Each structure stands twice: as C-alpha cells, then as structure tokens.
C-alpha cells in the first residue's frame, strides 16, 4: 500500500506540464515541440488544420521511409575508390630468375638415361612403322618395367566406334604384320592414329583410363613429365639443387642502378618447375632496395646464360629464361605470372606497380594475412606471405595427400608425407590425373581460398632487341667467357645469352585505394538532413517525442489505476446493490422526506460519481486550471 502511494506521488510529481489526459498531452506537445508540422495543426483554422495534419503525417512517413533507405545503404557497406598515379620512391620489385629447363642434362643424364632410350625407341616405332629398321636392333634391351608403369599407346581410330589400342612395344609384331600399319604410308589421307597415355589405378589392373592427345608431341611431353617426376621425386633435395644451374654459371653480370652486384646478391630457392631459381631483392634477410629514379639507367641490368645445349630434350621444348616480378617476401609462381626472355636478345621491361588496396571485412571478402583461410598454407615453410596461388596449390596438395596418399612433386610437402613415385605408389599417376581434371576439387579450392586485400600487380611493358649485335658479339662473348670460366675459349653463344633490363617507368605507381562510402558520420548527417528537410527536426525532437510517449504511458498507468479503483468500488457496490448513502444523503434523508436519489449524471456539471469517503481520486480539474491560467489570453478566447 505504501509503495502504491509512493508511486502515485511520484507520478504526480512527474506529471507537471503536459496534462492529465491524452488530448491535453497531445495539444501540449504540438504546441511546444520543435518539429515544424504539429504546431500548425493546433494553430490553424479547421480546414487548414486538416491539411496540416495530413501534411505532417505525410512528412513523418517520408522521413521514416527515407531513413530506412539510408540505413539500408549504410549497412550495404559500399566503398568508393580513389585513384592516384605518379612517381615516387618505391621498393624495387623482387625479381626471380629461372632457367626454363630445371636441370643440367649432363648432370641428370644417369637418372634419365633409361627413360630417354625408351622414348627414343618408342618414337622410332611410332614414326616409322615399317619393319626392318636398323636402330631397333642396335639398341640395348629396354627397361620395359619402367615403360609398363605408365605406357604410351597408339589408338587406331579408323573405326570410330571401337578403336583398336596398340601397345607400342608389346604388340609390336602384330602391329607390324597388320595391314593398316603398312598401308598408312600409302593411304596418307586416312591417318587416324592417336597417341595416348595409359593410366591404371594399379599395375595390371583393369581399371585404366586412356588420356587422349590430339597431338603426339603433347602426349610425349606429358608422358615424359609424369615419368621424370616419378624418378626425380626420389632424389634428395640437396642433390637436386646440385643438378640445377648454379648462380655463378647463370648470372654473368649484374648492375643495379650505378651499383655493381653479382650472383651473391641473389637468394637461391628451389622451384619444382624450374629447378634453381634466384631472387634479387627478396627482402628476406636485408632491407628491400628502393628505386627513386625512372628509366633504364637506374634499374636492374642482368646478363644471363641459360646454356641451351644442356637442356633436357624431352622435358621442356621452349628455351629461355623465365622471370617474374613480385612483391618482397612472396613466393614466385612462375607458371602463373612468369614471362619468358628469349635467348640472344635484350629484353627491356618497364614496370608500373598497379596496386589495389581494399578494405577488409565487412566491406569486401578478402583476407589480410591468410590466417582466416581454412587451408593449411604449405608455402609458409619458405617464410613467404599468403597469396591466393599459394592457397590454391596448398589446397590441391592437401587433397592429393588425402586421396592418393602421397604428395605431388611440384608442390611443397606437408609434414610426414613423401613425394609420389612409381615404386611406392604405383597408381599415383592415375590418381593425380583424375584429381587434376576434377572440376569439383577445383571448385572446393576456389571456394575455400580468399584473395588478399592488397593486390599488387606489376604491369610490364616488354620490348626486345637482338643482343649482342653482330659487331660486338665477339668481344662480349670473349669477356664473359673469360670471366666465368677463366678460359680464353669462348664458351658462350647466341643460344644461351640473355640481357635483361628491368626498370621503373616514368609513372611507376597506380594505386586504387578504397575508402568507406558510408561512415557513421555520413549516416547521422544524412538522417539529420532528412529529418530537418521534411520536418525541421533534430535529435532533441526525438527526445521530445520519447518524452511524450513516456508521459502517455504515465497517463495510461494513472488511468489503469483509477479504473482499477473504480472496478473495486463497483465491486464493493455490487455487494451492496445501492451505493452506500453519502453523509449528505443521510442528512438529507433525515431532513427531507421527499428526497429521491437522482440518476447519475443527470445533472450537468455534476461529478459522475459521488465523492467517496476514504481516499479521494486525485482532483484533476484543479490541476488543469493551472496550465490554462498561464496561457492567459487563450482562456479569454474560450
């Protein structure tokens, strides 16, 4: 009871200005609010009142609608891009240089000897199917064990529906006796032979696929890569590094700006595709070099020797240096981003750094350092930063290990796994081949890898000229040979030598950076603008509105209390069907014999309920007089 009393008192205290009924509250609000519309509803004549009422409603709904749009815009996290182009002192890109051929043929020959003899013999058979070839007889017994692991087959497609598969070595005799074989020369236009690689899940098992090739050259290369991969994967890493090209043999001259440099300025890295690669300005141990001048004079100048005579004939048919410009501390993915430099030429590469700086979550779905990508980055063993290529390759290797049980030679190994080879994993080529062509696997990797937020590309303007010129050829070869081999004999030739110039262009950067299009400040000012535009409102007006809502709640509370009280009274009255006689009634009843109780509300101006004994309901009327008094002239108008 005490609490209730307290509440009622608090209520009364809070309820000062606005009044005690909804209507009073509303009128008060409209009259005193800072929002522009409502005041006019009160102040105008009845016709305009109606117009203003609808106008205010319309504007209020417009404000809310547009606020909805604005908040929606804000939550879509748009970005604006700004572009800047110019020249500034920038870090010179890391330059990776490899030979297109991974190993010196003279070094790997013992390992690949059998393979080469096999392919040579096979090519003999394929190209000259006529019997009585002398070279066949001369050859030593071939290692058919090696051949049968992954054999090449000829597919005779004269009959489209059931092609005849001819094994090159085993069905040799039948092929020779076959009429078609001998006919093929005469019947030239009907050549339908195709070369295919036979891949079986286990040796001798029936589960085999034939990888068809439209071109024999392609088939031979593919087959050779599969076989040599298997052989080389058994060779330990340091041995493989030894078999590759050494820095001092490959990098003959180096000049960075005006500073001389030599092969020692290059960091060696073993790249599975290209053997030993050398990276200039990788920034792993020392600070990255800056370049503050545009033009070829201030860039990197290199002279390389790729010694084309020492190429593995079947492995790589293109000759040249493979080079790539990339960011410091990133792994060079030469197959993707690398370019060739041709032997016997001078290749000039003007560089423009094309940067894209993006904002991370929630503006775009990119990753800053790859830590939130669910793929284990295998390239982290090189201490390199995350890149999408690294992620995709790691993803592939992880799948390979999972499905085939061994790692592919071209990618780094996860811990505790070995590279695939024919002895330990006879079905690996089949497994790899099916995995590689699986669209599903690729899609999984694409979905799980995220691109980096800062995307840097090196736009290259490549031009070439013949080098050395005929007139200068002699002395240049002489000096370079002397410097490398300390001999007076010329050990270099046009087929091996490459000159490279890598330099910044006049404009060396183009940066597209993102900034948030909608910030919270933008949102607030736009919201304020809308509210102000339609209704002249501000945050204070919202607070006013909130206040009114609280006030009306209070009024409701008061009404409910009084209603409850009324209910109690009615209940009490229901017990005694007639209302308990008041004191005055009793007095009247005593004094006036003709007194009849009047019907309730019949007398105008009389209170609806007779005043009750006990706690009287709050006398609102008396309170209402007060605000009306302050208005003064208004009361006159009434």
């Amino acid at each position, binding site marked *: 009871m005490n609490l209730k009393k307290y509440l009622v008192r608090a209520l009364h205290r809070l309820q000062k200005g606005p009044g005690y009924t909804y209507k009073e509250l509303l009128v008060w609000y409209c009259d005193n609010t800072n929002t522009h519309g409502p005041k006019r509803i009160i102040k105008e004549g009845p016709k305009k009142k109606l117009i203003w009422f609808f106008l205010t409603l319309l504007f209020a709904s417009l404000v809310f609608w547009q606020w909805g749009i604005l908040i929606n815009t804000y939550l879509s996290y748009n970005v604006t891009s700004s572009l800047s182009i110019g020249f500034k002192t920038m870090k010179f890109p890391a330059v990776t240089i490899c030979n297109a051929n991974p190993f010196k043929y003279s070094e790997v020959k013992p390992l690949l000897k059998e393979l080469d003899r096999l392919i040579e013999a096979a090519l003999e058979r394929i190209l000259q199917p006529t019997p009585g070839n002398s070279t066949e007889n001369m050859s030593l017994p071939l290692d058919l064990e090696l051949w049968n692991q992954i054999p090449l087959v000829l597919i005779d497609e004269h009959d489209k529906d059931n092609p005849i598969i001819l094994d090159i070595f085993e069905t040799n005799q039948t092929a020779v006796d076959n009429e078609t074989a001998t006919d093929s020369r005469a019947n030239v236009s009907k050549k339908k032979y195709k070369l295919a690689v036979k891949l079986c899940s286990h040796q001798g098992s029936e589960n085999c696929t034939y990888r068809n090739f439209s071109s024999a050259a392609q088939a031979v290369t593919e087959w050779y890569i599969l076989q040599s991969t298997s052989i080389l994967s058994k060779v330990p890493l340091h041995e493989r590094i030894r078999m590759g090209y050494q820095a001092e043999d490959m990098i003959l001259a180096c000049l960075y700006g005006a500073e001389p440099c030599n092969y020692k300025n290059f960091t060696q890295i073993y790249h599975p595709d290209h053997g030993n690669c050398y990276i200039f300005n990788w920034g792993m141990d020392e600070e990255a070099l800056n370049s503050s001048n545009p033009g070829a004079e201030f860039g990197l100048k290199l002279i390389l020797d790729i010694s084309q005579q020492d190429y593995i004939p079947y492995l790589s048919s293109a000759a040249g240096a493979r080079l790539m410009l990339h960011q410091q501390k990133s792994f060079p993915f030469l197959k993707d981003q690398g370019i060739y430099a041709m032997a016997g030429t001078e290749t000039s590469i003007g560089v423009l750094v094309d940067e894209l700086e993006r904002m991370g979550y929630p503006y775009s779905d990119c990753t800053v350092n790859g830590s939130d990508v669910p793929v284990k980055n295998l390239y982290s063993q090189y201490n390199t930063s995350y890149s999408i290529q690294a992620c995709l390759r790691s993803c592939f290797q992880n799948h390979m290990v999972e499905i085939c049980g061994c790692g592919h030679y071209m990618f780094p190994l996860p811990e505790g796994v070995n590279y695939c080879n024919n002895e330990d994993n006879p079905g690996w080529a089949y497994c790899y081949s099916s995995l590689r062509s699986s669209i599903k696997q690729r899609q999984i990797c694409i979905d799980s890898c995220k*691109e980096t937020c800062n995307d840097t590309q090196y736009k290259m303007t490549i031009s070439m000229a013949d080098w050395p010129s005929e007139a200068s050829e002699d002395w240049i070869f002489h000096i370079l040979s002397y410097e490398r081999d300390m001999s007076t004999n010329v050990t270099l030739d046009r087929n091996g030598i490459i000159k490279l110039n890598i330099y910044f262009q006049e404009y060396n950067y183009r940066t597209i950076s993102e900034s948030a299009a909608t910030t919270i400040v933008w949102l607030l000012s736009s919201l304020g603008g809308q509210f102000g535009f339609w209704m002249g409102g501000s945050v204070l007006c919202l607070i006013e509105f909130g206040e009114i809502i609280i006030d009306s709640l209070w009024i409701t509370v008061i009404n409910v209390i009084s209603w409850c009280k009324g209910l109690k009274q009615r209940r009490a009255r229901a017990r005694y069907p007639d209302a308990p006689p008041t004191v005055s009634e009793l007095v009247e009843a005593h004094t006036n014999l003709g007194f009849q109780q009047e019907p309730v509300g019949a007398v105008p101006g009389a209170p609806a309920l007779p005043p009750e004994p006990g706690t009287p309901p709050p006398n609102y009327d008396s309170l209402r007089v007060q605000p009306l008094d302050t208005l003064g002239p208004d009361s006159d108008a009434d």
Partner: protein
Amino acid sequence: AATAPGKKITARLKRTLPVRGPQAPTLSELMRWYCLNTNTHGCRRIVVSRGRLRRLLWIALTLSAVGLILWQCAELLMNYYSASVSVTVQFQKLPFPAVTICNINPYKYSAMKEYLYELDKETKKALETFYGFSEGKSKVRRSVDDWNSTGSDFFEQIPLLKVEDFSRTATELHSGQKRKIEGSVFHKDSSIVNSGDSNDIIGFQLCDANNSSDCALYTFSSGVNAIQEWYKLHYMNIMAQIPLEIKEKLSYSAEDLLLTCFFDGLSCDKRHFTRFHHPLHGNCYTFNSGESGTILSTSTGGSEYGLQVVLYIDEADYNPFLVTSTGAKIMVHDQNEYPFIEDIGTEIETAAATSIGMHFTQSRKLSKPYSDCTETGADIPVDNLYNKSYSLQICLHSCFQKAMVESCGCAQYAQPLPAGAEYCNYKKNPNWMYCYYRLHEKFVKEQLGCQQICKDACSFKEWALTTSIAQWPSVVSEDWMLRVLSWDKGQKLNKKLNKTDLANLMVFYKDLNERFISENPANTLVILLSNFGGQLGLWMSCSVVCVIEIVEVFFIDSLSIVLRHQWQRAKKWWSGRQQGRAAQASDVERQGHENPACIDEDLPTFTTALRLPLPQDSPLPRTPPPNYSTLRLETAFTEQLPDTLELGQH
C-alpha cells in the same frame, strides 16, 4: 422541405469549415505575423530586434543565409549527376575468352595464282621498270591459262606512275609516255617538302570516270608503300568478284593451321574452333566462340591450364606483295564481340613460343544522364552491319560502309554488306576507287560525321595481355619435336617441317582475379534531399514545412490581400460611377467609418477590434481579431519602447 437538407448540409459545412481569408488585413501585418510565427530562424529576430542597426544586421544576416542556401542547393543540384567509381576484385572461375587466330597471309598463294596472275605480272613489270628489280625466273611459275583478265585495261587506267614533282609530269608504266598531271596531289606518307628532293616519286592517279578532269594523284615517299597500296587496291578489286565459298576454299583450313591444341590440361581439336571469314585475313579460327552454346571456363590460372596451340604457318605459300611479314595474328575478345583483328590483333612470331598472360577487367559506365555512352547501340542512327554486339569500332565501320554505299553505290570489300548492296568491283562501278579514296580522306578528317554519331559502349570487357617470347623449339628438342609434329601433320606433306613454319602459342589467365570497375551514381534522391535538409537546417533551421509556409504566406496570402485590395478598389470605383450616374445630386462622399465599403476593406486589427463592437447581426465575424500571444508581446514592447529610446539618447 426537400431543399432543406441540402441547405442544412451547406450551412453545416460553412460552419465547420468556414472560408477565411489571410489572417492579416494588410501586407505589412501579414509579414509581421509571418515573422513572428514562422519556424525559420532569423525572420523573428528582425521583428523582435530593437534598434535600427540591429534590425538591419539581422535583415542582412537572414538574407545572406537565404542566399547561401540557394547557392549551396544549386551546387548540390548541379553535382547531382556525378558518378563515383568502385573497383571490386573477385576471385572466381572465369569464362575463357574467345581467341581468334589468323594466318597473316589470307589465301594460299599457290591457289590464288589463277586469279592474281595478271596483277602479279603487272607488279613485277613495275618493279622492273622503276627499280630495275627482276626476280629469278625459277620462282615465277608461268600459268598457261589464258584468263582473260578483266583488269588488263583496268591496269592501264590506274597505272603506277613515276612523278617528276617539279614539272608535274608523270611517266606511265605501260606506255612510258609522259603526261601532265591535273588535279590535286595527295601525299600519303610525307609532306611534299620531304619528298621534293628525290625526283622519282611513285604513286598512282585516280580519276573520276565521269569527269576525267577531276583526278587525284596519290604519291608515296617510298616505293614499298606505293606498290603495296597499289597492289592492295587491285587485289581488293579482284577479290570482290570471287564468291565467298570459293574464297573459303582458297584459304587455310583448320587442319592446315592447327597442329596441336591443348586446353585446360585436356586435348582439343578443330571441333573447338569456329571458322570465320575475314576479308583481309582469309579464314580465321575462333577458339571458344560460344557457337556451340557452351562457353569454356577456367578454374585454374597458369600457363598449363590455358590454351596451347602449335600453328602451322606455311611461309613458302605467302603472297609476296600483299603481306610482307610472317606469322599469325591473334586476338583475345569476348564471345559477343566482333574481332577487328586487322586493327587490334597481336602478331605471333614463328619459331618461337609466345606466352600471353591475361588479366581480366570488366568495366561499366553509367549511361545517360551521367555520361554519353550507349548500352546496346539501339539509340544510334547507324545500323549495325556486324552480327555482334555493339562497339565503337563496329559503329565506325558500319557508318563508313553506309556512307560508301550512299555516295559510291557499292560496298567496300573489307566490311560486311549492308542489305541490298554489293561489293565494289571495277566492272560494275568503274568509279569506285576514286570515290573510296575521297570518302576515306573525308572519314579520316572527321568530315563524314561518323565520329560524332558513334558513341562508346557503356560496358566492356578487357583482357590485358602480357606477351613474352621464348625460343621454341629449343636447340636440343628441335629434332624430335619437328619429327613428331610432322607425324602429327600426317604424311600429307612429304617433307619434314621447318621450324620457321611453326609458331607455338600459349594463352592463359595469369590469375583468376576479375577486376570489375563500375560507376555508381554518387547521389541518390534520398541523399540529395538529406543534403538539402542539412543546408536548410544549418543556415535557417528551415524545412519543407517552412517552404510551404513561405509559399502560403508570400504567394497565396499576400496575393489574396493584394487581390482583395484591388477588388475593393474596383468595386468602389464601380459603385462610385454607378452612384455618380444614378444620383448626381447626392455627391456627398462618405468617408471613414461611415463608409461600409471601407469598413469591409480594412478589417479590424487587434486594437480596432477591441475598440469596435462586434457586428450584432452575424454570429461569426468574417475575420476574428488575431488572438496570438505574439500580439500581446507587441503591446509589451510599446510599453517598453521609451526604455530603448532612452538608451538611444545616452
């Protein structure tokens, strides 16, 4: 009784919605009322301020605020149609573009012999007469057929000329006779100053067939250009007469051109290529043209997963005068795009592996009113002659062809035929060459209006190419490679392939990052309104409500006041005239309060209303005295006014 309800309703309406005029009888009263009651800041200050200086200051401030608002809002409106650029990068499976490959030489020379015999003979003759060059007899195969050339007289008509510049006479190739040159001289290569010192400039003369005096002489600083240009002119003339089917046969077949094909780690063959006949490059082959309904895509970047082809370029079968370089031309383009390979193709060297790394960028501009570009080309008054989606190049070529058909009556050979037209050839249109050269001159000088009509397309796809070259095949692999490729080619050729007849091409995605550059409207209507609101609110705390107020007060109310004044005056004048006419005698004019019209006109103000008794007959006064608290404030001021005066005296 029936009319009663209607009257009742109107009476009720009048009672509930009485028609009232403005709340002030005069304009100054209205202004005063407005200023005191308006929601905008500033105006109230003017009325409320005491002292003239302060009032003036407030007037100036309010006016400057209004000015600022107008200026800023105009600025906002003017910048409404501006665009902001956003760049998004997406890593995804990318559609592989169409790759069109052509041999630089359009037709097999051996097959063309029949058609070009006369022309070649003429060319060789020209070389011999002008430069003393004669080919070894062994190379010139004498074809015995007596192809009665249509051109023999035609060659005579447009011969190569040796021009002696100073005398303006020319030696003709055939007759050797000299003749005077009339008409204008066009120099294709250089200005006349540079070529002035050498006496023998080679060129050719084109004359209007109908009017032989109207001639144009085209000269070139180098005989190489002159002969090539002249040869091309005649070549086009000859080719225009050969039907397309025969031309397709004369050119290279897919088997001829493509030796090996490898895409995305899988083998492919000629079925993946679509033939398309290019007028200048013969048969071209488009990989992944999308004609089969599917467009190939790559989900792995890198050189292994792109397109790898080895092309057979039969160097021995090249036309010696038409093309002087060896190799292939390729172009990377969208499936819907027409390959303008002669304009933007990339050349491929023989005996080399060309690796082309691609980077995909898609751009999108906003069309009107943001920028002047076209979405589909439908709004451009030039018919698209190509069966592909709109591009600026297509528009320019179509526009030129249209002009050509209009003015020369026939179509130019290098572009598709418009409906109802046919290619120019000398037999039917003897005048076409002259016409063509004239028109081309105009086109280059932007006099045809094509450059003005054609707009660029709003969205375009671009593949940025990084081209690098390696030696191929390498010295050690050359032997087996050539042997195996010869086997691939089949024994059709009874010779081993030469490495200068081969070109290796690799086209691949460097990465699968797709850059999407798009323009977005910088402003939307919502933002514009927000900015308006911000400006209005900042300077004057104004809103649309205030604007409506201003409209109401300054236009409707003041206008009605003015009109009422006018009306009263007119009424007075009229009644005065009536009275003057009716009762000339009673010319005593009523004045002031005695005049009912005057009372009607000058509605009682607050003070007068207080003084005057309300009219007894009408329960509702037409305009009640304004009962605003502001008016009460005013009385307060009048009381205080002496104070300010005192202050002023100090």
